[in-house]
């Protein structure tokens, strides 16, 4: 099952790469740099998905106290932090030639940066609590606080300032670009989501093996 997911994500990523470079047209004003946009939004999407899963698994853990829910939260948080970091990095690489700067304190950039440090703190907490059961409880609480905090972060930072372009895919009225841009983006979105599922499944299995070895 996990292995199938692995092969599936490898194939989907390869297809996504081919479509981003082969099918998608070269953007007129930005040139090839724009092709980062077939990777950057999927990375950001997976990051949000991952932290959503952390929140759901955290609530499930506090209600049921099933170690499996805690392992899912743990794995998803790790992958989420990784993808958030990659989203920030790819965004920077795109921003330098396009906006002329690696980083700017725009609303969305700032809120993603806060998200990143919040969940880095989450992983830090996991690493410092020695007792497993206690770590699970504390991290579940932190996972819930962090998720509920996100809308507040979003609004506060948005009122503070904004420069990032509005979402092009999920907005009222739907996508208005051409199909040659839409399909490569959608394939990559699916590919990265499968990759996320694979990494989490793999990590959960590893965490279970660790727990069994220590028990």
């Amino acid at each position, binding site marked *: 099952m996990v292995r199938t997911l692995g092969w599936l994500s490898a194939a989907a990523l390869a297809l996504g790469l081919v479509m981003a470079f082969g099918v998608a047209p070269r953007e007129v004003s930005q040139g090839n740099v724009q092709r980062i946009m077939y990777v950057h939004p999927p990375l950001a999407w997976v990051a949000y998905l991952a932290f959503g899963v952390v929140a759901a698994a955290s609530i499930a853990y*506090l209600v049921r106290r099933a170690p499996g829910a805690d392992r899912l939260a743990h794995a998803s948080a790790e992958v989420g932090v990784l993808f958030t970091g990659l989203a920030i990095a790819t965004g920077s690489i795109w921003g330098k030639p396009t906006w002329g700067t690696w980083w700017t304190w725009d609303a969305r950039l700032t809120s993603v940066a*806060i998200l990143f*440090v*919040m969940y880095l*703190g989450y992983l*830090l*907490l996991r690493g*410092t*609590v*020695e007792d497993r*059961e*206690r770590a699970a*409880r*504390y991290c*579940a*609480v*932190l996972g*819930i*606080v*962090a998720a*509920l*905090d996100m809308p*507040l*972060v979003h*609004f*506060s*930072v948005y*009122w*503070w300032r904004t420069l990032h372009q509005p979402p092009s895919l999920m907005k009222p009225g739907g996508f208005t670009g051409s199909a040659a841009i839409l399909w490569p983006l959608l394939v990559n979105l699916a590919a990265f989501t499968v990759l996320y599922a694979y990494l989490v499944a793999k990590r959960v299995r590893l965490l279970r093996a660790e727990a069994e070895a220590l028990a």
Partner: protein
Amino acid sequence: MSFARRALVVAWKDLLVERRSKETLNALIFFALLLLFVFQFALGPDRERLAGVLPGVLWLGFILSGLLALGRTFLVEREHDCWEGLLLAPGDKSAVYLGKLAGNLALMAVVETLVLGLFVVFFDIDLARAFPGLVVVVALATLGLAAVGTLFAAMTAHVRAREVLFPVLLLPVQVPVLLAAVKATEALLAGEPLGAVAHWVKLLAAADVVYLAVGVLTFDAILEG
């Protein structure tokens, strides 16, 4: 004992211990004074530049002294071996949370009043017009800060490297509260009425409701063992 009474007993105990030992309060007052020195050295004597950064600096003062005060919430219990006593408290543990929160709010109110007073004297800010609005903003922001701070203090009480971990966990979560508080303070000190910063005040109120609800609902899980 009713729920409210149990919370009050915890708050009363904390305030009594603090009044008799003054362990935290004395250090905090001294710390606030030192912060003022540091700010003055860092910013230099230029009045105009000072006026621009004052709201941010004021909140830096509040948050830094707040971090010190809140971080100690449950260490007192550990140092004096009272943790088990708290665990054995009958009924819902959220009463302990609310009691601890009330004690922290009282402590922070004292420190914040003092810091504000020092700022009026040393940085020559004119509070007369902004004062009523400022009280509302400071009260709402402090409640948000203390609500999460009390929760996280319980969480980090048993953790290695807790002095580092507590601010590292608390600060990112508190970004909305700090942003709203600084922006609202900035407008109020510039002479605008409270109505002009209504959106920030609403955000602070929403944050308070969310944080308090999570604190009350999850504290049981933290105090289990």
